[in-house]
């Protein structure tokens, strides 16, 4: 199919070792950047330097084209029509599910549930698993570096069920204390919800080992993979996680769709999250029989175009190669961190040994929102604030940070622009 053929990024996925500092050669990175129309934009008369990828990444033309092709030629509702368009749309949507399955190494496609995003995936597990299997006196373990979306649903559950939330502490580098983690377990521990990569600090947690610990106590583990899935190869069977959640829009796909992976045996035991169409087998006024997984958890018409777009984004990322992406982003992070450390008054928040390409920092006593506004005047997009992780800010005794987060389409020149921008901010406040 011509769309599929067009759906490949125009570059070789072979790392170019001529450039020792990156997985991409200069020409490769230029070709990648040419796939992203938005990167040609200027902001306040300056070339856009987009360093807010942890919040949302940009979309390549291949994904934009796939969305346009779907809307132009293929749209119909799925899973119900007998007509050609509906059947085709269903096939394309289910193909996207298979791509997701392969992307994260799931065993079966019925373990892949389309959600609206990471947040909904966590809430689905809280309702479907938590409300059924967690009760009074039980304990749920989360970490000190969770995004609010992996705190609040569990707090709500604890309040409802009179269960207890236990927190894995971290050190000043932003690394979880594994000894303390092991001590939190007891016979009441019923669940662990943990971020794979911290959005505020960049820390990559040793989740494989932590999952093994939880399983010794029979506690299932949910991993928040929103910041991991776009940046490193993830294999849910190798990790042995019970649930894995992530979002399309942080990995070059559209907003409005995300993924919940769950082990089939657990998903089958769970209660539905929302009632409605598509999630039923049979409905009478006396009784409803629920559909099988994954459809049991997919009530109503989903974001069909977005789901198919996510499939195209996976094709795009896979063709570049997650190893290449990780290597290039690591090179950017090292280069940026070294340059940032040389700026007087700049302090990096989050200095874990294993880090994704997130540079969170504070600068003298300049509020991060002022940094963000002034960098924006230079065309540089960063996030400023608490990053929906207020407990992380409290842990470090700061109200907020400025955060530059990198993607595979960012360049060393853009890091230079960021560093120059930070110097400009310092000058304004001098």
């Amino acid at each position: 199919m011509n769309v599929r053929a067009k759906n490949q990024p125009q570059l070789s996925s072979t790392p170019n070792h001529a450039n020792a500092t990156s997985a991409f050669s200069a020409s490769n990175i230029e070709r990648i950047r040419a796939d992203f129309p938005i990167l040609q934009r200027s902001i306040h008369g300056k070339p856009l330097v987009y360093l807010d990828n942890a919040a949302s990444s940009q979309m390549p033309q291949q994904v934009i084209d796939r969305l346009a092709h779907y809307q132009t030629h293929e749209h119909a509702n799925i899973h119900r029509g007998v007509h050609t368009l509906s059947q085709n749309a269903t096939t394309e949507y289910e193909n996207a599910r298979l791509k997701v399955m392969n992307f994260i190494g799931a065993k079966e496609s019925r373990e892949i549930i389309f959600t609206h995003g990471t947040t909904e995936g966590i809430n689905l597990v809280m309702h479907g698993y938590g409300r059924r299997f967690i009760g009074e006196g039980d304990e749920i373990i989360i970490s000190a570096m969770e995004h609010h979306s992996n705190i609040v649903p569990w707090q709500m559950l604890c309040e409802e069920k009179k269960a207890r939330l236990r927190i894995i502490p971290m050190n000043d580098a932003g690394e979880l204390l594994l000894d303390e983690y092991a001590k939190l377990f007891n016979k009441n521990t019923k669940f662990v919800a943990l971020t794979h990569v911290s959005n505020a600090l960049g820390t990559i947690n040793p989740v494989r080992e932590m999952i093994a610990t939880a399983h010794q106590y029979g506690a299932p583990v949910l991993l928040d993979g929103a910041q991991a899935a776009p940046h490193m190869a993830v294999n849910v069977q190798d990790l042995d996680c019970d649930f894995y959640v992530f979002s399309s829009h942080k990995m070059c796909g559209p907003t409005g769709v995300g993924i919940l992976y769950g082990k089939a045996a657990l998903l089958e035991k769970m209660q539905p999250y929302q009632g409605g169409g598509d999630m039923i087998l049979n409905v009478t006024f006396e009784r409803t029989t629920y559909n099988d997984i994954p459809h049991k958890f997919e009530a109503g018409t989903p974001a069909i175009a977005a789901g198919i777009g996510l499939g195209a984004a996976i094709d795009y990322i896979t063709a570049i190669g997650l190893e290449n992406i990780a290597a290039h982003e690591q090179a950017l992070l090292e280069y940026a961190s070294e340059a940032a450390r040389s700026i007087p008054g700049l302090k990096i928040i989050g200095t874990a040994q294993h880090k994704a390409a997130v540079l969170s920092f504070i600068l003298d006593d300049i509020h991060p929102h002022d940094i963000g506004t002034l960098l924006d005047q230079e065309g540089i997009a960063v996030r400023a604030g608490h990053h929906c992780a207020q407990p992380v800010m409290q842990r470090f005794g700061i109200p907020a940070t400025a955060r530059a987060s990198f993607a595979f389409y960012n360049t060393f020149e853009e890091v230079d622009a960021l560093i120059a921008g930070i110097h400009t901010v310092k000058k304004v406040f001098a």
Partner: protein
Amino acid sequence: MMNNPRALYQEVILDHNKKPRNFGVLENANRHAEGHNPVCGDHITLHVKIDGGHISGISFEGQSCAICKASASMMTGQVKGKTVVEAETLIQEFREMATGKLDVNAQPHHLGRLTVFAGVSELPSRVKCAILPWHTLHAAFKDMGSTSTEKDF
């Protein structure tokens, strides 16, 4: 009309952010209010002394961005000695200016030097930073104790 955010920063910050006026606790204050912007974490506390409808004293403390701190600093200077009714007029006018509803060059107002904040209307994400102190002052007058930028007046 100042519409260059860099210019806004230079005007406001160089002075009031570095040397905020009326910063600290006010002895004998009879009204207090806390203002909080949950979006960015700005947090200020206002202490106000009202005598017979007049603001005889006012101070602020807390942690905030430069726009919020400078706004609070200039606000305390402007409302001290005024009546509560006059201050409420300023609150209303400041809000309208910051949200772009009042053109300070074309329409009558009482804002005086506070017009240096007109440029903030060009920065939608920062409007609340500038308004928070005024929001909090209104809460102090009403004896509401605390307020947030997420609440309407």
